[in-house]
């Protein structure tokens, strides 16, 4: 059925960031969102909310819901603790009435590079972000150092070509 523009449903779009960056598809994010909404508010609110994942770009995604439900959706998104069995958090960054506004807020380039860091005399492979965050790769990690660090925790830092 074709509706007049004034009779169409109004939506709100939420830009989210997934932390830490994990490879996931839109259906994984949808499942995590739907599970969180249902467990927090029940089926009745979940059916009124109409959540759906519109776009995924790296660790960012845009989620749609009906207007008036965005606060409840934000709460449910904050209550997500795993995505596809991997521990993760979802941070809602911005809410808007159009997808275009949110697309402009997604960083164009991937903000991190591969590299090597030296901690306590040992070298580790790492992912280094522009903001100075360093995530050590799991391989070769010893238990006596933290995995998520910053430049201040390292003795030396080299970027891969």
């Amino acid at each position: 059925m074709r509706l007049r523009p004034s009779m169409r449903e109004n939506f709100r779009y939420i830009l989210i960031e997934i932390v830490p960056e994990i490879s996931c598809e839109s259906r994984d994010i949808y499942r995590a969102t739907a599970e969180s909404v249902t467990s927090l508010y029940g089926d009745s609110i979940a059916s009124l909310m109409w959540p759906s994942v519109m776009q995924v770009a790296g660790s960012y995604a845009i989620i749609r819901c009906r207007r008036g439900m965005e606060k409840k959706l934000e709460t449910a998104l904050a209550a997500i603790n795993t995505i596809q069995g991997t521990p993760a958090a979802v941070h809602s960054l911005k809410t808007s009435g159009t997808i275009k506004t949110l697309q402009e807020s997604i960083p164009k380039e991937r903000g991190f590079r591969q590299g090597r860091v030296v901690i306590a005399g040992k070298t580790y492979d790492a992912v280094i972000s522009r903001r100075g965050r360093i995530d050590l790769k799991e391989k070769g990690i010893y238990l006596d150092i933290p995995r998520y660090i910053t430049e201040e925790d390292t003795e030396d830092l080299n970027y891969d070509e």
Partner: protein
Amino acid sequence: MQFFDGCVLPYPSGQVSSSRFARDLQNLGFSGCVMCGTVPEEILYDVPVLTARYLTDIQPRLLSREIGRSAMEHDLVYVQAGDAGFNRTAIQTTGIHVLTDVQNTPKDGFDRYCAQLAAERGVAIDLSVRPLVELRDVARQKVIRKYEEIFTLQNRYEFPLVLSSHASEIWHLKSPREMIRLFSLVCDDEDLLRSSLGTVSQVKNWVGPVREV
């Protein structure tokens, strides 16, 4: 307005260094945080960092001794709540700033008398966002019910509240807005929640009511 995360647990409690916590919290919109455990002092952090000692499973008679030890090395002292008797003793002990893990206390573990004492002595009650995120079904319902009781008592006695993430990993961190959203499941008063995010600094410098001598 200042937003402080009431409790984060850096390495060795988790896999995140204290400087990384400070940077991530700044990016999330916090203006400071309280770190429990071993925190290196020589590092210059991105946000003001208060250190705290987190006392768990401690006998009431040993409280004063442990607090005396902590006061020299840390800015704040956090004590894990227990049964009603323990909580009353803990709140009345000088040097304790925050009572944590109140959601795990037995029934009537934190009653109106404890609330009154906490208000009189300026001891804050710490509410963690982590059980709201990590638990599901009946376990989460129990926590929500417990938090509701605490908010009701807070409304009556006006003791200070501290909201915290109790994060030991980076995915446990929540932004101030997310914390307010999650606690709005329990409490409708967003102004109270917002002010509770800045209570830590007041608890640290708390001076009792003015008394006529």
